[in-house]
């Protein structure tokens, strides 16, 4: 008995969490996939009715806007946050005196919830309260900064707030990466008289590939599941100009009693995650094995 316990202890300990993950993650993904093929409205129904919900999704201009917004927001957010984060990390890496304090300052936004970030930026960007009003108060009567209330520009305010929130975190990731590069190689390069920018572009950054992967995965999933920031910052407005697939899904499931639509949009979101993240993960992990 004791022997059997000893042999099977790892399995026994892991079993509850394994079962929980199977049911609550993969089980419910399966359930959502099933419901997305039905005509469920207020309550889930289980009679399969082909791909009608996906057809409705394709015909919905609001979902189209949401997908476009996801593309704009996702791309800009990931690229800008990575570039800014890397830049900040490199600047911090120059052995400056107050590094600890500065690092903390840049990292702090990450300690806030997206709701706080969204609300703060809503006030900052509000033309009557924030930047525009302040600059006008300084005497520049023609100054305008109305992105938040402009349907064409509002999605960029979401990018702005999200980048502000996350780039400090990316900076910390990259800073750790920079520090993990072998000092010897850098010193050798310096002895050879190679300029600093070449040291970064040819040696340090390429050797940080796994950090890029981590940063990308973290930012990509933040972007795709972005919900609270939009709700707090714009409420999806003006109109539905800043709707994202997650807010669309929420509106369908909880405000409109259209569970079929919500389930199908959730499946589309999952496919987006898979198509972006899986190949990247796969290629990165494979090259590592070789």
């Amino acid at each position, binding site marked *: 008995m004791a022997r059997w316990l000893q042999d099977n202890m790892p399995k026994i300990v892991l079993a509850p969490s394994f079962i929980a993950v199977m049911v609550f993650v993969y089980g419910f993904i399966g359930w959502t996939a099933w419901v997305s093929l039905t005509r469920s*409205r207020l309550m889930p129904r289980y009679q399969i009715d082909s791909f009608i919900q996906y057809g409705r999704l394709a015909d919905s201009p*609001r979902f189209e806007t949401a997908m476009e917004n996801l593309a704009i927001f996702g791309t800009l957010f990931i690229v800008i946050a990575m570039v800014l984060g890397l830049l900040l990390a490199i600047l911090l890496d120059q052995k400056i005196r107050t590094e600890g304090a500065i690092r903390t300052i840049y990292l702090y936004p990450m300690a806030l919830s997206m709701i706080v970030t969204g609300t703060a930026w809503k006030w900052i960007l509000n033309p009557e309260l924030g930047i525009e009003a302040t600059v006008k108060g300084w005497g520049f009567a023609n100054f305008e900064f109305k992105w938040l209330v402009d349907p064409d520009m509002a999605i960029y305010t979401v990018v702005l707030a999200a980048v502000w929130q996350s780039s400090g975190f990316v900076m910390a990731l990259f800073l750790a990466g920079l520090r993990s590069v072998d000092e010897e190689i850098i010193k050798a390069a310096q002895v050879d008289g190679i300029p600093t920018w070449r040291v970064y572009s040819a040696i340090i950054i390429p050797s940080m590939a796994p950090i890029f992967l981590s940063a990308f995965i973290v930012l990509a999933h933040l972007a795709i599941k972005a919900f609270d920031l939009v709700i707090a910052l714009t409420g999806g407005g003006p*109109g539905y100009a800043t709707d994202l697939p997650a807010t669309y899904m929420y509106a369908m499931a909880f405000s409109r009693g259209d569970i079929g639509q919500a389930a199908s949009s959730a499946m589309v979101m999952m496919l987006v995650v898979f198509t972006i993240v899986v190949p990247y993960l796969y290629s990165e992990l494979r090259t590592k094995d070789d």
Partner: protein
Amino acid sequence: MKSYVLSTASAIAVCAAGVASADGHAEAEVLHYWTSGGEAKSVAVLQEEFAANGGTWTDMPVAGGGGDAAGTALRARVLSGNAPTAAQIKGPAIQEWYAEGVLADISSVAEANDWANLLPASIAAHMQCEGTWCAAPVNVHRVDWIWANTEILAANGIEMPTTWDEFNAAAESLQAAGIIPLAHGGQAWQDATVFETVVLGLGGAEFYQAALVNLETEALTSDTMIAAFDQMRTMRGYVDPNFSGRDWNLATAMVMNGEAAFQIMGDWAKGEFLAAGKVPGVDFSCASTPGDGYLYNVDSFAMFSVDGDGKAAGQELLAELIMGPNFQEVFNMNKGSIPARTDVDLSGFDECAQLSAADMASTNDGGTLMPSYAHGMALFGAQSGAITDVVTAHFNSDMSSADAVQMLADAVANSM
């Protein structure tokens, strides 16, 4: 009827004796989303009456999302086979829940108390599911109100508008005087609220019924609908540039403070005026939006099928109290709406409420008493949502009215 009398009588008797027995003792678990100050006070009235009649009330308030969170909680409860005794549901959602086979029949109470003759016919129809009574109405909110700052109107020599052209003319002159003509919050449901009053005003009740209740394609793509979108575009010019995302009560405050002249909003806006100590007819004026008709938004409680005599007795007691004249009067005075039953004495209500009740009676006779689509009284969620999407997309962009009408027809077809 007999069993109802017996159970109520025994419930009271049991309580009087101070012995609480499990069966026969009226109990109710009530799921609702009246959580803000005035609303909570209003629902407490019901709670007290229920207790005074020997019932045990279990309160289950769910705040958030204008009832969305409560709807989610309700679904979870029903799915897990543990439905509340009564839940705050309104409009076609009552029939949707009935179709799921989970609502209880309260016809015995309704018939014993003659609800059919106490309620306006179209409101009574909302409370019935395939011939049986399945919900009890609490109040009637009128949606098609236009509120105005009386002082500003007087200073600019403007009367309350009775046609949309008059409204536009008044707005132009106010704008010239440097006053924001229309206080509005750029949230989808507020855009929809203004839109439905415009459709009712320009098209009349028959057109409203065809377009926003029956969803007839002919009506949705008609010239009248194009005119309604044109009017929305015109009114887009009358709101201040910073209206996006503003809450409705902040828009009401703009009218109160004299920053803006008009607001189009249901009579919950009156609560804001009154809470700020403003007097109707002196500080602010109320009138129905231009055009004939009446758009109602009726809150109601539906009863769910539950096991146990105590709960069944609780449902019947609750239904009777909700429609009781005392609760209808006290509750609605707190909430700013008017009683759903038509025989309540309105002398204690303010002049806006009295106007609302008079109009409800006359539009009921004239057949122009219409359910509000923007507040979930006319359509299923998916359909009203599809319309609102188009309305708010049009209002917040430079889309042409012809495009909007086409998009409206497509969206409605896609939502079926």
